[in-house]
C-alpha cells in the first residue's frame, strides 16, 4: 500500500465504506446483467419504442439500434434512431 493510501485511510473520515462501494458496483452491474439475461428484453423494448416513435416520426427501422451500456457510474439506454421525416401529426 502506498504511503498516501495509508495516510488517506487514517485521516480521511469521509472515506466510503468498502461495502458501500461493493453495493453500488453490484447495483450497476446487475442492471446490465438483468437486461441482457434475455435479448428478448431489448427486443421487446425496441418494438415498443418503434411503435411509439412511429406515431411522430418516419424512422429507418432497419438501422435502428437500442442498447444498454455501462458508463463510468451509471447504466445508459443508448438508442440510435435514424429519422427520415416528420409525420403530419406534429402540425395538427
Amino acid at each position, binding site marked *: 500500500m502506498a504511503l498516501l493510501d495509508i495516510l488517506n485511510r487514517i485521516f480521511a473520515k469521509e472515506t466510503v*465504506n*468498502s*461495502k*458501500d462501494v*461493493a*453495493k453500488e*458496483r*453490484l*447495483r450497476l*452491474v*446487475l442492471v446490465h*446483467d*438483468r437486461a441482457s*439475461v434475455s435479448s428478448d428484453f431489448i427486443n421487446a423494448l425496441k418494438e415498443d419504442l418503434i411503435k411509439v416513435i412511429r406515431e411522430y416520426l418516419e424512422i429507418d427501422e432497419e438501422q435502428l439500434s437500442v442498447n444498454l451500456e455501462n458508463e463510468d457510474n451509471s447504466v445508459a439506454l443508448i438508442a440510435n434512431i435514424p429519422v427520415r421525416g416528420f409525420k403530419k401529426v406534429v402540425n395538427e
Partner: protein
Amino acid sequence: MESKVIVITSGKGGVGKTTTTANIGTALAMMGKKVVLLDTDIGLRNLDVVMGLENRIVFDIVDVVNNNCKLQQALTKDKRYEGLYLLPAAQTKEKTAVSPHQMKNLINELKKEFEFILVDCPAGIEQGFRNAIAGADEAVVVATPEISSVRDADRIIGLLEASGFREPKLIINRLRSKMAKRGDMMDIDDILDILSIELLGVVPEDEYIVVSTNRGEPAVTDTVSKAGAAYRRVARRITGQDVEIYTGEETSSLVNRFMKMVKLAR
C-alpha cells in the same frame, strides 16, 4: 406422504452448497424426518466425504438411472441418524450422464419413501444445473457476502424464476459480523436490498466447518458450532416452525460460555 424436494444451488462455485445440503439434511434427520441427500455434482462428488460416508458407497446415481442396480442398493445409509440417506454422484462420469428427464423419474421414486429430498447442485448454469432443478419444487440459493457471489445468485434467481420456481429462498453463508459491522462486508440488509428475495437463513463464517468436514461430521451435530446452530434453525424453518433468523450477532450468553468450557475440558 407429502414430500418436499429442495434444490440447493448458487451459480458460483465454492460458496457452500454441499456444506449446506449436508447440514440441513442432517438437522432434519435429527428432528426425526426421513431425508435423502442427492448429490448431482457428477464428476466432482463431495457430499459423501462431507457426510463421512465415502467408505460405504457401492453404487451411485448413474448406476441407478442406467439400471445397473436397484435404487435401494445405491441409497447409502447415514452412520448416525436413522432415516438419513445419501444417493451419491458418480465420480468418473460426465455431467451429461444423467438427463433432466431421468432425474425427474428418479425423484418421483424417492418421493414414495422420503419426506425431504435435498438436491446438491453443481456450480454453473449448464446441464448439471438443469439436472439438479429438474425434479425440484423449491429452490434455496446460497450466496456469500461478496460481489461475485451475489451477482451469480442474481443470475441463478432469474433462471430459477424463468424455470417456474415461484419463490427461491436465500441463505447467506460465511457472514463475518465484525467485518460487516465496520462496513467492510455487505450485511444481510445490503444483500436482501439487491436480490429482493426471501431470507431463509444466515450462516456465520465458522472455523468449525473445516473441523467438521475433516471429521466427516456435519456441524449441526456439534453443540457449540455457530454455523451448526444457524443450520439447525434453517432446518426448523424448512419444517414450518416459526424460528427467528440468526443475524450474526455474537451470542456470548453464560450458557454458551459454559458449553465452550465443557467442550475445552473434554
